[in-house]
């Protein structure tokens, strides 16, 4: 069944969209990721214009992160104060990202920017996760191995503007969380992702937040930043396709439920290694596209 997307102005198979939403939903349920980093490239592959793909996937992330945020709010695993500080940075970053995005769009380099961002971030994150989970598996096979001690005091704790974050049990400067927020906001606007895959490691290793509040707090930030980014894309570019978003949502919601159930049966290390491989796979595909001579050197853009 073909469905015509009013903003993207293309006709695509409705079941294909439901399928993409479903696969990404399964992954987000399985691994606890937003799945934006997969939706956007998949939408490129099926012929959705990049600008529409990026803007619409932010709208899709709003839905999935709000859904998960409600669960975390119920469990009281959200640090609202830290979330708000991250959010302030995120809004600044998102606005910056939109400016950069629109400038490069006028130069015709937006596809390159998006692809490069994907290759770099997915490559680095995927490799780090792969190595870390391999080490974790090796350690779990050798019981009794000493766990590495995390440094409690590093440069992050010597910056000014200190603030108390009661839920996280931290007393640190607001500069690092704001910077983390800005970085994530820029990525949300340019790559059409939530940025959880950057923010979660940054919160654990850079800010030293306790693991149990990290996911909820990042979801809090992601919900608002992606909502803001969706608004900016809708107002400045008119590239949010509501029909496309709804199709992806329906598939995603159902997929997420299956993913969550599958995730229960698997070990955390195995899950992480699978996710790392998946991230590296997407990265590799995009890198090949950049490195191999394209069959069609020319492309048409609006002027």
């Amino acid at each position, binding site marked *: *069944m*073909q*469905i*015509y997307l*009013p*903003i993207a*102005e*293309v*006709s695509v198979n409705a079941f294909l969209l439901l399928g993409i939403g479903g696969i990404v939903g399964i992954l987000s349920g399985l691994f606890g990721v937003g799945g934006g980093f997969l939706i956007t490239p998949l939408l490129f592959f099926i012929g959705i214009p990049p600008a529409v793909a990026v803007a619409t996937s932010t*709208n*899709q992330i*709003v*839905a*999935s*992160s*709000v*859904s*998960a945020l*409600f*669960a975390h709010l119920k469990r009281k695993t959200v640090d609202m104060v830290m979330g708000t500080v991250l959010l302030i940075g995120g809004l600044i970053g998102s606005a910056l990202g939109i400016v950069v995005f629109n400038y490069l769009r006028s130069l*015709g*380099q937006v*596809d*390159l920017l998006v692809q490069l961002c994907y290759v770099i971030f997915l490559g680095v994150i995927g490799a780090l996760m792969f190595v870390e989970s391999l080490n974790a598996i090796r350690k779990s096979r050798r019981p009794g191995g000493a766990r590495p001690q995390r440094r409690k005091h590093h440069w992050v704790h010597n910056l000014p503007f200190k603030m108390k974050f009661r839920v996280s049990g931290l007393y640190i400067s607001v500069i690092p969380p704001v910077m983390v927020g800005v970085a994530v906001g820029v990525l949300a606007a340019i790559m059409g992702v939530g940025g959880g895959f950057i923010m979660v490691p940054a919160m654990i290793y850079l800010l030293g937040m306790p693991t149990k509040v990290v996911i909820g707090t990042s979801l809090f930030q992601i919900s608002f930043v992606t*909502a803001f980014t*969706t*608004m900016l*894309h*809708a*107002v400045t570019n*008119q590239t*949010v396709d*509501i*029909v496309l*978003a*709804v199709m992806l*949502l*329906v598939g995603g*919601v159902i997929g*997420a*439920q299956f993913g969550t159930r599958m995730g229960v049966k698997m070990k955390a290390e195995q899950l992480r290694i699978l996710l790392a491989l998946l991230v590296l796979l997407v990265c590799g595909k995009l890198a090949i596209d*950049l*490195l*191999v*001579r*394209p069959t*069609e*050197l*020319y*492309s*048409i*853009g*609006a*002027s």
Partner: protein
Amino acid sequence: MIRLLVLFLVLALPAQAEKIVLGLSQDQVSITATFNGSEILIFGAVKRETPIPEAETLGVIISVAGPDTPVTVRRKDRRLGIWINTDAVEVDAAPSFYAVATSGPMKDVLRDVEDLRHRVTIPRVIRSVGAAIDDSPLFSQALVRIRAGEGLYQVLEGAVDLEQETLFRTSISLPSNLTEGDYAARIFLTRDGQVIDEYVTIIPVQKVGLEQWLYSLAHENALLYGLMSLAIAIAAGWGASAAFGLLRR
């Protein structure tokens, strides 16, 4: 000289007496939510008061053109090992869709001079002036090649059925990735490649219903549209988790 001119006039007169009478299978195209391309049947007859001239061959050319828009054609080149867009050429006006169907080989039914005057073949309908790059024709060719690959530019030589030099018909298939606007259908009647009659009619292509409403809302009231998208997303996210929560119990 004068005699030759008179001869020409005499020969030309019966030809000018041939007129096009046209019919369309649909006088507008509506893009609905399930729009998956469309087919337009264009048919008609040659009206004449005199007998069919024997000496010259009759040709029928039918073209359908979408709205003209400026486009930028970019070319990738290898820089630092990766392929990035480097050169760009602005094409002043290129139709978003263009199909041309003929009753015979293009060179037989249309002379170059007439093509130049009436802008019938695809290279003639693309207007590109003042390109700063030496090999700018390559960019126009690329534009045609890409759009032809997407089914947006079609050359259908011999696709017009011409019966007894009087009745003609062809069908033009419109792909699903159509741009809205007024599509001009032009029908040319030629004798030995000379245009003797031209008929133009407009086929409006527009989104209807929900598609139209969403598109105009997104462009005219972007803030409201954005808020609506968010509201739907939030409601769906919350509704889904609530619904599955109930199911699991």
